[in-house]
């Protein structure tokens, strides 16, 4: 992202007792997760009414009219009908809303829609080529790395980002590294071992846990 970011967390932290609107342009305190906003690069004052924001979503340019307080997740789900990312905790604790913003995994519930102006946003819907599943998505199905499927969109985006970050060295990935990459993605059905197995298979790495092995031990 090229424009200065204003995250939801940073916005709330910066707001203090001042109105949220005021903090959109004049944060009271520094935000460690975002570059400092100076007069020169300050964004235009927006809100409180809906204002348009343009960004690239799964390869296509989209424009959406939303209030400054609307999160990226709400804009995706309510205004753009992109419902792969899920709202589960609404405070950055579970990762079910994970999307890629300029290639980095981010919690869409912790960003404002206006934060991604001009940025490249990829959701689970954009991981494959049209109807064609990506190798990772296909591996998730083969390894049963999903049960109810509600964490799956976020799991996939986190894992896709991991594989892209590792690039040609992905074959050296370990199960522990995959676990680290999905540490922010909660699953209630218990799919973690199968997620690890799926990622390691796509990475071309050696399976490292009993569950990751495809061989089913079966007695009786």
């Amino acid at each position, binding site marked *: 992202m090229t424009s200065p970011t204003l995250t939801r967390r940073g916005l709330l932290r910066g707001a203090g007792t001042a109105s949220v609107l005021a903090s959109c342009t004049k944060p009271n305190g520094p935000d460690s997760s975002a570059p400092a906003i100076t007069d020169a690069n300050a964004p235009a004052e927006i809100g409180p009414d809906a204002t348009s924001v343009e960004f690239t979503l799964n390869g296509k340019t989209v424009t959406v009219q939303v209030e400054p307080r609307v999160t990226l997740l709400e804009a995706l789900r309510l205004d753009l009908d992109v419902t792969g990312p899920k709202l589960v905790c609404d405070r950055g*604790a579970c990762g079910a809303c994970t999307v890629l913003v300029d290639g980095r995994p981010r919690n869409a519930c912790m960003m404002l829609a206006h934060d991604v102006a001009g940025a490249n946003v990829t959701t689970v819907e954009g991981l494959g080529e049209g109807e064609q599943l990506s190798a990772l998505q296909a591996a*998730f199905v083969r390894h*049963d790395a999903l049960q109810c499927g509600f964490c799956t969109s976020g799991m996939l985006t986190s894992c896709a980002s991991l594989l892209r970050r590792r690039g040609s060295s992905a074959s050296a990935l370990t199960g522990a590294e995959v676990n680290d990459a999905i540490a922010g993605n*909660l699953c209630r059905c218990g799919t973690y071992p199968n997620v690890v197995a799926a990622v390691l298979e796509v990475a071309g790495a050696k399976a490292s846990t009993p569950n990751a092995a495809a061989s089913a031990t079966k007695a009786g």
Partner: protein
Amino acid sequence: MPRKTITVGFADQLTEIEADIPAGEPRPWDADNRLVVVGKPVPRIDGHLKVSGRAKYTHDIALPGMLHAAVLRCPLPCARIKKIGLGGAAKAPGVKAAITLAEVGDRILFAGQDIAAVAAERPELARDALASIEVEYEALPFVVDTRMAASPSAPAVHQGVVRERKTEGDEPGAAGAQGGEGNVRKMPDSRRGDPAKALKKAAVVHEATYSTQVQTHSALETHGIVVRWDAKDKITAWCSTQGIFSVRDELAEIFGVPTANVRVITEFLGGGFGAKFGASAPGTRLGFIAGELSRKAGAPVKLMCDRHEEHVCTGNRPDAHQDVKLGADASGRLVALHVRSLGTAGIGTGAGIGRNAFSVYTKIPHVLVEASDVYTNAGPGTAMRAPGHPQGAFAVELAIDELARKMKADPLALRIRHDEHPVRKWQFEQGATRFGWAEARKRSEAARARGTRMRTGVGVAASIWGDFGRPGVTVTVTIGRDGSIKVDNGVQDIGTGIGTVMAQVAAEVLSRPTDAITVRIGRSEFGPSVGSGGSTTTSSVTPAVRNACEQAKTQLLAVASDLLGVPPADVVWGPEGQALGGGKVLTFEALCKKMPGEAIVATGTRGKTYGAHPMEFSGQPMQQIAGVQFAEVEIDTWTGVIRVKRVLAMHDCGRVMNALTCRSQINGGVILGTSYALLEERVLDRDFGRMLNPNLEHYKIAGARDIPEIDVVMTDVFAGNNSTGAIGIGEPSTIPTAAAIACAVYDALGVPVRSLPITPAKILAALGVIPTGGTPT
């Protein structure tokens, strides 16, 4: 009933029995049947929709003109409504309807109870409008702590008659509460022999108190419903539910419309774990709220709980505080067990402690299990994956280990000696070898003796459940002239992949590829089915699928008989669904083309369970499902930090229907159990009566780095119970995990931690490194 000889049993313990098969049902798949598709690790048929974000959950439903609802909830744990009015809420920006849900004079019983609701064009506008609703409360005395509530001087939570809420998630046939005193209401006892007398005569007695916490279901998709009125007396509802028909029935009852006029859709469901039955959640009238707002606004209304609401008013697993007395005679034989438990399901009932104490170690001659519900000013509990069982297992299994140490006995040998279930005994024995039990026990003993900083320990515990599969399912199979095969049933997929297993069963019977079968589920119009509770879905639905497909096949054989010119009995069904007879072959497609009408339509139902080999469940005519789990933990005795290194889960799976999805369910049971053992706890503030951690950052559920390596052994057990031999595995697989972990902690430390969750602080307190106290229990 036709009597047939079938082969039942498990591993090398197979035997032939005579079984009475209900009329019209095929000979059940038994140990002699070698199946081609059923049992194989077939990836789920709707997986591509879930990994591409195209699966639409209730959470994702968007209808033209749809409004979003928000609910105002009582901030106080007990209060009387002095004034209530909608104020400016009805006219707030974007608001199309507003209703009150309480009246002046009402006594509100917990923080989170329904007060009022609005529907607006966007969720944030609905939330904004709640601030305009005017309510004046008179704060009343309350109690949220289980033991404090049990005291005769505690404020009475209920003033009138308490109606017990039962759902399909409850263990079928489990006893309900009865009359009581103050906030305490006793459940019927389970008793055999005279434990008081036997304990007096016992040579060794162990006595201690074991506590478990309140756990919330925390399904990732919160409770939610979308209601649309299609006519004055006609409703379509999309609901995040484990029981489509329970939603239909409740909406019909609430709004006084015929059940035939209520259509319920649950194409995908983001988890349930026992809390999602009916149109409403246990502590909030979601169905009424969405339906009434929709009726008033003249537009569809969507109501999704937020995470806070999900924790406080949609159900939970009650806690348990169990006083256990366990006695043995001089020869080391267990002679008596007495468990007395207090637990709270908040304002509701159902704080039982399962069957482990009474029904697993059946060679203990004298047993008494007493359990009571204690009312508190908190959201109602409800069934959660094996209601009562993990609590009960934790207490009795750890008590057995503590007594074993006093007697210098091996806890595994003690279990095998007192368990009569042949499958579980086999699992204990096989598991000990596979897990390396004896060597691991020696290692932990040596480390304890040396007083090392890092310790490991191992434990083992048992699982008991019943084959609660039942009739009430009708499956329709439609084979088209074009050779298409559709299998329809109104069951919902909670995440186990029931649709995939249905396709496998149809593929098996008709000898067609799995991907040639179209399974349609998740809609009430697809025909009667069961709720996904009690581990009943697979064992209720798959027999009906098989029976329907067998009927359809019989009709196809009749068509083939005419075409081939041989009697139906002489037509052979080939391995690719072709018909052979009279030296001729008809491919499946050619045969379908010749059918007399447009399609062959057959329905199949599921009869009563007719077999329970090798052992019944608590005297009921159904198979007792056995399982054992071994766990190994590693503990840093300086910091108290604990890690579960590995779990071996051996479970009776009936006939495994799909090795891939069955294994996933067992993984899930172990992971949920690990989370319960180490991390999860609903914390209520005793002074303010509110939940302090109603989120997912302070209410901890296990993440990828918190879980053990899991070794799953699926034991095929042929019980001759129904036409496919399926049973359920969802609940049995989570029962023994926390108990096995607690026993492993005891083995590692040499001192027990008798309270869940087993946190570093409790470990350090048990070691005497830091003082005990300060916690509510």
